[in-house]
C-alpha cells in the first residue's frame, strides 16, 4: 500500500555531511520531495521532506533514519494556530500557497487544515494578530 507523509528531520551536527537522504532513495525505494532544507556545515540541519512509497519501505526508511540518529517529527505538528489569538479576520486566506486556510462561507470563520500545510511560513508574519506559530 502506498503512503505519502510529510516529515521534519533534525540532523545532529555529526550527520550533516553524510548522504542520508540518498540512502532513503537508493536502499528503500522512496520518492522524495524537499519542501524545505536548512543544512549548514558544523550545525544542526533541518529538512522538511515529503516521502512517498510502499508502507513497508516507508517504515524501514524511517527506522534507518532513527537508527542513524536523525530526529523525526510529523510536519503537521509544526505549524499551529493559536486559537486564543486568532480573530478570524481572514488575512491569511490569500497568502497561503496551498490553500490550507478555508473560509466557512456560512459562519465566516477561518478553518486551518494542517494536513495541507507545507510549513512555508508565509502566514506566520502575515497574520495580523500573530496567531500562527512555528515549532521546528
Amino acid at each position, binding site marked *: 500500500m502506498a503512503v505519502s507523509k510529510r516529515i521534519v528531520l533534525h540532523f545532529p551536527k555529526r550527520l550533516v555531511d553524510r548522504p542520508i537522504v540518498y540512502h532513503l532513495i537508493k536502499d528503500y525505494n522512496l520518492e522524495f520531495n524537499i519542501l524545505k532544507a536548512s543544512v549548514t556545515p558544523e550545525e544542526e540541519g533541518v529538512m522538511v521532506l515529503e516521502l512517498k512509497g510502499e508502507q513497508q519501505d516507508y517504515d524501514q526508511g524511517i527506522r534507518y533514519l532513527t537508527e542513524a540518529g536523525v530526529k523525526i517529527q510529523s510536519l503537521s505538528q509544526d505549524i499551529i494556530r493559536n486559537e486564543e489569538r486568532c480573530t*478570524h*479576520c*481572514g488575512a491569511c486566506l*490569500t*497568502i497561503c500557497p496551498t490553500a490550507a486556510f478555508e473560509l466557512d*462561507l456560512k*459562519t465566516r470563520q477561518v478553518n486551518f487544515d494542517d494536513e495541507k500545510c507545507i510549513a512555508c511560513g508565509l502566514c506566520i508574519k*502575515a497574520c495580523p*494578530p500573530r496567531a500562527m506559530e512555528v515549532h521546528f
Partner: protein
Amino acid sequence: MIRTIAEINEKIKQGRAVVLTAEEIIDIAREKGTKKAAEEVDVVTTGTFGPMCSSGAYFNIGHSKPRIKLGGGRVYLNDVPAYAGLAAVDIFLGANALPDDDPRNRVHPGEFNYGGGHVIEELVAGRDIRLVVSAYGTDCYPRKKLETWINLADLNEAVLFNIRNAYQNYNVACNLSDKAIYTYMGVLRPNLGNVNYCSAGQLSPLLNDPYYQTIGIGSKIFLGGGVGFIAWQGTQHNPDVPRTEKGVPKRSAGTLAVIGDLKQMSPKYLVGTSMLGYGCTLTVGVGVPIPILSEEILEYTSVSDEDIQAAVIDYSEAYPQQKPDILAEVSYAELKSGKVKIQDKEIPTASLSSYPRAVEIATTLKEWILRGKFLLTQPVAPLPGVESGDVFKPLKERPLEE
C-alpha cells in the same frame, strides 16, 4: 417619528424592548416590509472589529516619592515610547508607537511584532508593564529617573481614546506592480494577485446610519469589550462623498472618535496587531446601537452587503502617489464571496476585518440591551453631515526655504 429614545429606554428598563442585530434586520425588513419592521423593532445593533490605527490610551500613573515629572521627559512602556507632553504623571500611548530600535524591524519588510497596540492589549489583560522614565528634575519634581512595574489596576486613569475608529466604508486594496508589497491593508501579491478589504459591511455602524441621523457625539457604545462613548467626529471625517441611491457612501466617508474606561474593557476586543512591512496597530471592537425612531431609519439599517460598494485601488502606485484612479467598484457581497472579477481576471479576496467577531459584538450589545444593562443615549451634538462643508483635504505643502 414612531418613538423617542426616552421611550425606548423605558421599554429597555421594563425588559420589553425588541432588539435585532444589523444582520438579523435584513431578512425581517425584507419579509415584513420596512413599515411593519419599524413599528415592531426598537433598536438595531451594529458591530465591527478591525485594525484601527488612530487608537491609543492615556494614563495617570500617580506620583512617586519623591515626585517626578514625566511631562517633557522620555517615557517608555515595555520599551515602546509613550507621549510625555502633558502634566507630571499623565502620558499618552499610541497604537502605532514602535520601540526605538527593534532589530526585527530593521530590514524591509520588518516584522513589527511589538508596539503600542500590543502594550495596550497586555495592559488590558492585566499584565505588568515596565515603565522607564528619564525626566528633567525640578525643585517641585526633583526625581530624574524612575523604573517600575505598573499594572492597569493601580493606575488612576486608564482611558482608551481613539481619535479615528469605525471608518464608514474603506478602500479595497490591490497591487498592480510585479513585486509583492507590504501595506496597512496587508500583504498584496503582484499583478492583481489578491485583493484585500476592511469593513464589516452590512454590520458596520456608520454604514447602517449613513447620514448620521441617530449616531452622534455622546452616543453610548460598545467599545473594546466594555462601554464607551462617541467623543467627536474622527479625524478625516469626510461626509460628502459619492453615495448610492440608498445613501450608502461608495468611498470612505465618516469616522468616529471614541472614548472609554480601559479598566472595564477586554483583550478579546483590543488586540495588538502587526502588519508585516508596515507597523503596529490595535484591532478594536466597536458596536453602536441605532434607535429606530422612524421608518426611514429602519430602512437604512436594513442595508445589506450587496448594497454597499467600495473602490478597488492600486496600492503600489496610485495610492502612495496620491493618484485618484480606481480600477473598479465592487460590492461587499462580491468581496465576501471570496472572488471578484477585475480586468477580466478572477481575483481571490480576503478581509482584514473579522466579520464573525463583528457579529459577536452586535450580538453582545443586543444582549446587554435586552437584559436592561445598557440604555441608549441622546447625542448632545450631531456629527458633521454632508452639508457641513467638512472635507478631508490633502496637505498643502509650503516648503520652508525661499
